[in-house]
């Protein structure tokens, strides 16, 4: 499958704390609701209602340790998904949010050096099978680390909750190993 869309390129460290700012840490998990103020702490231009969600980005391109800082809140992922983000490409990801992303079915794709080859607003095309990302605006191309089958399986079943629900219903929990 190929997914095409506009990207936002992170200027530096993007912390989970800034993707969802403190006053929303205890909000209910709801992609639409969480998207309204997602990225509010990342830059002043996003610090208003739908400041990020209203810009029509499909991808985020980031450097090292995307969504770091040690917050486990899942609003970070649901907020980005609610804002229309289809994948995040980064040099590396923070562990907690890497897990949350897999559990919600938002691909966190490891791809080195993309921040230097993309600018905010560039049009990208991501081939989910080969892992190749084309920058259609400047013609550059990047090879990402392929996604593990387990991650695709969870995503296809609509996230970890559905994945587990199905196995509980089928009595297959003890087979998970």
């Amino acid at each position, binding site marked *: 499958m190929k997914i095409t869309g506009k990207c936002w390129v992170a200027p530096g460290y993007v912390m989970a704390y800034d993707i969802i700012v403190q006053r929303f840490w205890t909000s209910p998990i709801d992609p639409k609701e969480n998207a309204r103020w997602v990225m509010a702490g990342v830059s002043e231009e996003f610090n208003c209602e739908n400041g990020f969600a209203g810009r029509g980005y499909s991808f985020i391109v980031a450097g090292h340790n995307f969504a770091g800082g040690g917050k486990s809140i899942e609003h970070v992922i649901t907020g980005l998904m609610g804002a229309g983000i289809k994948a995040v490409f980064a040099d590396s990801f923070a562990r907690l949010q890497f897990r949350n992303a897999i559990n919600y079915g938002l691909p966190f794709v490891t791809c080195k050096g993309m921040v230097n080859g993309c600018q905010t607003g560039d049009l990208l095309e991501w081939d989910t099978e080969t892992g190749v990302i084309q920058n259609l605006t400047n013609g550059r191309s990047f090879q990402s680390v392929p996604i593990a089958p387990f991650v695709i399986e969870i995503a296809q079943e609509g996230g970890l909750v559905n994945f587990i629900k199905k196995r*509980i219903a089928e009595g297959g929990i003890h087979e998970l190993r």
Partner: protein
Amino acid sequence: MPGMTITEKIIARNSGRTRVVPGELVWANIHTVMTMDYLGAQTFAKLHELGVREVFDRRRVICVSDHLVPPPNEKFATMLNEWRRIVREHHIEHFYDLGNQGIAHQIMVEKGHVLPGTISIGTDSHANTYGAVGALGNAVGVTDAAVAMATGKCWLRVPESVKFVVRGEWHPYVMAKDLSLHVMGMMHWNGHLIYKAIEYTGEAISKLGMAGRMTLCNMTVDLGAKNGIIAPDAVTRRYLRGRTDAEYAALQSDPDAEYEQVYEIDLGRVGPTVARPHRLDDVVPVEEVEGTPFNKAFVGTCTNGRVEDLEIMARILRGKRIHPDVNMLVVPASQAVYLEAMKKGYLATLVEAGAAIDTPSCAACAGIHTGVAGDGDVILSAGNRNMQGRMGSKKAEIYLTSPAVVAASVLFGKITDPRKL
């Protein structure tokens, strides 16, 4: 075939395998799942979303009130009421609420809910602390916790291991916190150690008590690591005696285990250490920031709120007065720590010196409870994070250091090297 590290052995043992290799994804059996007041209601809501009303084992889901107690406002009071209702509804056997409370990670270790050779997870980032007793401790989000509460299982990626061999003698005023910050300076905040298992070993670690081991493992999460671990030894066995009757496997790394990197640290080169605002890895020896004035001091948290931390402060502050320009807040990590420090006279010494003591909780560490930072505050803290806004105002500055440096510094209102007292 090469040997395995302790982390690999724990994952293999708890996922029905004879061996695992880094990068592998496995479903592992979970010994205990911890959730707390701040995210607990969300965790139970997720459990219900799975169509499950009963937890997999009422003795192995541990619930703690730590972020919100005692409630400073109506919002938190209402959240706590909902939290208590939901915990009771699930007949959770181990519920540590106000009166019996403590910071969740302290409770998990102190009450024997984590065991060597097993895996415990929690919905708070500093669950890495559990590695102090040779367990694999991991922080997860509410979905992972709910899945484990329903099934007793969690998926894990087997991490590459990195070993730190620590040699030399501990100077009386050099603490595990200084070593943690030293490693932070070497490896960087969320730097090269992202997703790695960090193993601390060597003669200096053998000599370290459980409090220091908890500090070391606790801060591995801020290095970006998956877990931090210290193999169980005589110190571990002594600590666990009286805390658990359960049998456990004192797993150790094989001599021929494979490490991605091995680093050697000589304690002779580690003195009192300070992380400057606003980055954990902006780390300098105390000498470089000596004389820096501050107006607030804070010691507590899952990093440095234990009896040994209070003891060293009492030793430094006995018979002395804190500088009048400094407000000092001390928060023991649990009721048990509070009581022991009270009986040993440490709290009396601190109060006589002019410190304020608050009831065990996470307090101001995450900027949501007692003692938050306001505009213009300069805080000398023995907590674990100093990002801008971490303790409240974005216009505050946080210097992170050890309880010994805090105690020496509050006497003068300026950052002070405790070795020079």
